[in-house]
């Protein structure tokens, strides 16, 4: 028997680990797969999660079984199709907590709901713990958490020695075509990597669209293209004549984020902080990064990555033109 408290403060008890779990939370399937080390108990997920994560890319290569899971739980991230979920006869449903209206219909028909809340760093760690309780694989959950904590602690030790006054500025830009869109207040803690975001304020506004004049005013040292920005590459910056007067473009310090940043709540996301620190401060901040990546993916998914796969994860092709990328990560 396992009993735990979910993010709503509700105590949930399972006599044995549930065998049919429907997940409405977008990143729950990958977390569940990582901790449970198998996909057998995942009975359903969102259409959206399936299409986005499991039909192409590294997950599709490593975890082909995920693509076969029923995807009728919800279309849009959180609004459940109650009858479709009932038809799966689930033992438990993982759902967001942000609105009682999206949980109440599920409980009304007698389903067991585990609530996850969003979006702080602690919430993200909790997903792993909660999944550990559900699957009865708390050991794996703690091992993964420890791997994260160790990496970040080492990184923190190095970042602490940097001169706080001279930290480089980094702007995450995911669009430069019809509009210039930057991440103003994202979820990634940039301080962990020893950089700062000139666009940050505490409005809570995640994305912000700016005009070119504003970009000139901020003039960041480094520009990062988020992993999800499929159509945007460093080359687009280097080839754009209007952007040529930007410092980061002049110095060719425009980088595409690696694939491990693709799924915001995935267990490997912490690698992003290390990668960014290396970009900003040098290879010392992520020593032997390729081996580390292979190790983490093996721990999480039991996958043995080929060298090409690691390169693909690091977006080495896209970043070939960027300053010192090859030197940094081979």
């Amino acid at each position, binding site marked *: 028997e396992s009993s735990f408290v979910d993010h709503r403060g509700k105590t949930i008890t399972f006599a044995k680990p549930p065998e049919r779990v429907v997940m409405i939370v977008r990143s729950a399937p990958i977390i569940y797969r990582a901790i449970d080390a198998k996909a057998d108990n995942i009975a359903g997920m969102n259409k959206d999660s399936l299409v986005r994560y499991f039909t192409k890319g590294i997950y599709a290569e490593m975890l082909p079984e995920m693509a076969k899971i029923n995807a009728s739980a919800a279309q849009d991230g959180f609004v459940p199709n109650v009858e*479709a979920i009932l038809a799966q006869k689930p033992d438990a449903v993982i759902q*967001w907590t942000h609105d009682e209206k999206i949980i109440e219909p599920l409980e009304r028909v007698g389903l067991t709901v585990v609530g996850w809340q969003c979006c702080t760093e602690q919430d993200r760690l909790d997903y792993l713990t909660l999944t550990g309780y559900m699957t009865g694989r708390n050991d794996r959950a703690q091992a993964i958490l420890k791997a994260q904590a160790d990496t970040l602690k080492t990184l923190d030790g190095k970042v602490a020695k940097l001169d706080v006054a001279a930290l480089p500025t980094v702007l995450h830009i995911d669009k430069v075509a019809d509009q210039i869109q930057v991440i103003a207040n994202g979820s990634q803690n940039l301080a962990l990597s020893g950089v700062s975001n000139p666009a940050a304020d505490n409005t809570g506004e995640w994305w912000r669209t700016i005009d070119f004049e504003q970009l000139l005013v901020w003039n960041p040292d480094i520009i990062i293209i988020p992993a999800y920005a499929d159509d945007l590459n460093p080359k687009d910056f280097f080839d754009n004549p209007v952007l040529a007067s930007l410092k980061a473009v002049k110095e060719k310090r425009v980088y595409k984020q690696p694939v491990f940043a693709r799924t915001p709540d995935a267990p490997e996301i912490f690698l992003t902080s290390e990668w960014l620190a290396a970009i900003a401060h040098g290879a010392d901040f992520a020593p032997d990064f390729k081996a580390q990546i292979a190790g983490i993916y093996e721990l999480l998914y039991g996958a043995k990555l080929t060298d090409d796969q690691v390169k693909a994860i690091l977006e080495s092709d896209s970043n070939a033109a960027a300053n010192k990328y090859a030197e940094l990560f081979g």
Partner: protein
Amino acid sequence: MPNSSAEAPAGKVRTGWLGRKLASVSILPALITLLVAVVLYSVTIGRYDLSVRDVTYILIDNVHPLVAPYWDPVHEVVVEQVRLPRIMAAVIIGFGLSVSGAALQGLFRNPLVDPGIIGVTSGAGFGGTLAILIGWQGYLLLAMAFFFGIGSVFLVKLLSTVRGRTSMLTLVLAGVVISAFFSAAISIAKLLADPFQKLPAITYWLMGSIASSNYLDVLLVAAAVVPSAIAIYLLRFQINIMSLGEEKARALGTRVVLVQWIILVASALISAGVVATSGIIGWVGLVIPHVARALVGADHQRLLPVSGVLGAIYLLMVDNLARTVTTAEIPLGIITALIGVPVFAVILRRLHAKGGWSSD
């Protein structure tokens, strides 16, 4: 001249009066029968497979308890907790929006008027958005939406009243202006919303859905819609008169301002109630009255009920599609238009000759 009327040929009068009553009666019961049929049909469909027999027994059980219910309790839950409240919500909302749309088109004498024109819809939308943004849920959200919706109609009335007189044109323009204002405010709120949780929540809520309706929601929306629809229906004859224009209405002895107010407030209640419980459901209140007018003419005595029932049938069918056609819930607002458009394009073409408006 009260007694002289007896001298009019009685037979003719009787058939005539009854004849008219019958004409209105023959379409309305047909529609009501259709509505009942669609409701019953709706209970039997859904992603969860249930036989028609099971559903019938489950329904009968409520009226006349069957000794040994042999069905799975989950079935009863599906029928009674998932499908029934949702069906009720669709019927009530479709009815309310169409009645209010028909009344407002008559009041403003403008075919482009819909329940959103008086600012309530986007006002209520903003109220709800604000609530989501602050993190309020459930009945707080509902209250906010409702409060802002009703507030905005008062704002519109205030804006358009110059020295005690309200012109219908200014009123309608004030409505447009206030709507635009709240829509912009909604957009601002969306820009500020957390894109992972709150933005999708706002977007989805605004798009309109009755997917998660429970009996309390149904009760709430009914509490807003039913009395308002009754008030509007009671004014059916006054709306006829108001549709001739304010001057004429005044000359005929109508208490113009009072009638305007009742209709505005009743429409505001309907819209605010709908938005509060189910988000913005557009289009129904604009188009259904035109279809109804094509069926029974411009007389609001027949138009209002026919409009209402037609709206109920329409929204119910649309919601049935929304919940069965794909695995995912498609927001109502989308299907309303997507399915409705081709259908109504044809209907409007066909029936336009007798479309009830004189201006074509």
